[in-house]
């Protein structure tokens, strides 16, 4: 890879998820929750209160047997690019849009827990810590030291594993580079996807696979009519899937 020119150094990290390939296995969510120390409770079936940075939705085309078909939508934070809904509403500036990467991050120690950001987010990406996180005693051993566990009373969400970005950037800096290679910074979910349905990279960099993939006629985003400009793109060859993403509007 060539050194990028000056004006390209402002990255817009984005993701593509091929829903035609995704089997809904949940590996992305499992590794995400391992990587980011997302807690779990005894009753995880209460989806209205459980913590999930990556949630996998199973949707069908609504047809009868045998015409019914199913796809899976893994849903990380959409990392909205335009007037990010959650960022503008936070009264305590606890969630911010990073101009250098386009990553929407969450400062959990600053969050006051008002949950206004959750009301603002149409993608149900954000989770509130209704309880203090508790791991059985020895399970604390598998917690990742790169991400601090959150306390009760604050909101959390997917950050595109921004701690990995910081690490990769440090490494690049130590090697005297001011850019990152495509494979240097990848969130845990993308790294783990066993069927290669997820790709990650800089949407501003035409050499990155994602920048090419989002040009495809298969590419679409969730709720495009809201003009939140997500940086997570989905890919599908099926028209019903693409239409579903915008509520068939």
């Amino acid at each position, binding site marked *: 890879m060539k050194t990028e020119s000056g004006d390209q150094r402002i990255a817009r990290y984005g993701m593509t998820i091929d829903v035609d390939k995704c089997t809904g296995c949940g590996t992305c969510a499992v590794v995400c929750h391992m990587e980011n120390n997302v807690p779990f409770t005894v009753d995880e079936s*209460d989806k*209205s*209160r459980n913590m999930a940075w990556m949630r996998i*939705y199973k*949707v069908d085309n609504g047809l009868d047997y045998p015409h019914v078909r199913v796809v899976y*939508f893994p*849903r990380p934070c959409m990392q909205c690019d335009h*007037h990010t*809904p959650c960022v*503008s*509403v*936070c*009264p*305590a*500036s*606890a969630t911010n849009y990073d101009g250098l990467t386009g990553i929407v991050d969450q400062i959990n120690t*600053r*969050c*006051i*827990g*008002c*949950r*206004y950001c*959750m*009301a*603002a*987010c*149409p*993608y*149900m990406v*954000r*989770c*509130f*810590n*209704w*309880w*203090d996180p508790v791991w059985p005693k020895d399970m604390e051993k598998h917690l990742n030291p790169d991400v601090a566990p959150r306390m*009760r*009373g*604050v*909101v959390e969400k997917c950050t595109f594993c921004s701690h990995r970005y910081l690490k990769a950037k440090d490494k690049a800096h130590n090697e005297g580079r001011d850019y990152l290679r495509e494979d240097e910074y990848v969130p845990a979910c993308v790294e783990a996807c066993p069927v290669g349905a997820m790709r990650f990279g800089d949407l501003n960099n035409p050499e990155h696979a994602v920048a090419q993939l989002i040009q495809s006629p298969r590419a679409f985003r*969730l*709720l495009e*009519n*809201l*003009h*939140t400009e997500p940086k997570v793109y989905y890919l599908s060859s099926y028209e019903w899937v693409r239409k*579903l*993403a*915008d*509520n*068939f*509007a």
Partner: protein
Amino acid sequence: MTSEHTTPKLERCSRQKFLVWLSVWGLLLAWGLYGAFLCLFKGLNQTGMNNYFVFGLWITVDLAIIALGAGAFFSGFLFYILKVDHLKDLIGAAVVIGFICYSGAIGMLTIDIGQPLRGYFSFWHANVHSMLTEVIFCITCYLFVLTIEFTPLILENKRLSEFPLFKYIGENLHGIMAVFALVGTFLSFFHQGSLGGMFGVLFARPFAYRTGVAIWPWTFFLFILSAIASGPALTTLVVWTTQKVTGKQLVRRSTLSKLAKLSATLFFVYLILKAADTVYWANVTAPQMGFAFTRFYQGPYGMELLFLELFVFGLLPAVLLLIPKAREHDFSLVIGCLFICMGIVLNRFVMTVQTLSIPVLPFEKFVAYAPTWQEWAVAAAVLGYGVIVYSLSYRYLHLFPREHELNA
């Protein structure tokens, strides 16, 4: 403005009776405090809220009582600035009601946020783009103003005014009250508006989102108007209830009628604008976001809520109170004011809870919300707190300047 130097002795019920009255409401307050303690100690898992209903009963009540508490600033504005003199009858009561509403709302908000001890971060790390920042700043400041407006009333108390210092402060504060009334009006306009703006700006929630002017969505203005319309309605209701409970004539009957007329007129104007807003939103704003208006009402909160809000608790009381004869009858006066208040509560409920119940993401479904007893307890505690503060104020302060004269 000159204050009366001699306060006539007022007749009040026996201490015993009063204590019984207080303890009833005190129990309610204690129950609520227990609920609040649980929420603070164990966390918000004690509530019925969840990741869908991030706002619930408390925010509805907050928004509603802040709107209904607008009687304070609006009466103050009319009385001190526009010199609408007959409001002097109940300006004291209006201030107390306002104080109760605002302090109650802030108390509830403190429990409602997940990290109350970090609450001040919204000042320290303020995000000026957030409507909520505006709300928090304004209501905190306005509570100061209300406290200052409340102070002379307290200092007029016979016992307290025996201390010359208090007496002096009380008298002199009156002199500058107009300034505070003005500041209060300004702050109130802003935070009432911002409360509406809070939901109107949620451009990713098609049910709540409204277009507007500059940074202010139409809900900003609708909330202001609905607040100043309903504030006097609550004041009327409270004063009327006080008269019924105490068995005394406290204000001139005509004052209540005038206040109701004012409320109804403003409410009528509000309804016209609200209707225009609804029509525009239903036909332009929502469809542009990919949502058919009717889809919003396919869940647990149906079209009947819209009907109730616009007609039963909207047009009906507005028209009723615009009829002079109806205002003269206590029954229709009270029903009218009550319905206006309920209309506002319903509006605030719709803007918060209904907004959150509607799925935006295609994979989600409609959801319903039920508050837990802890939430009801805290909400009830605000009522208990309000009645206690109001009762104390009525008993020991000179809330109604004409009371002596009317009960002579």
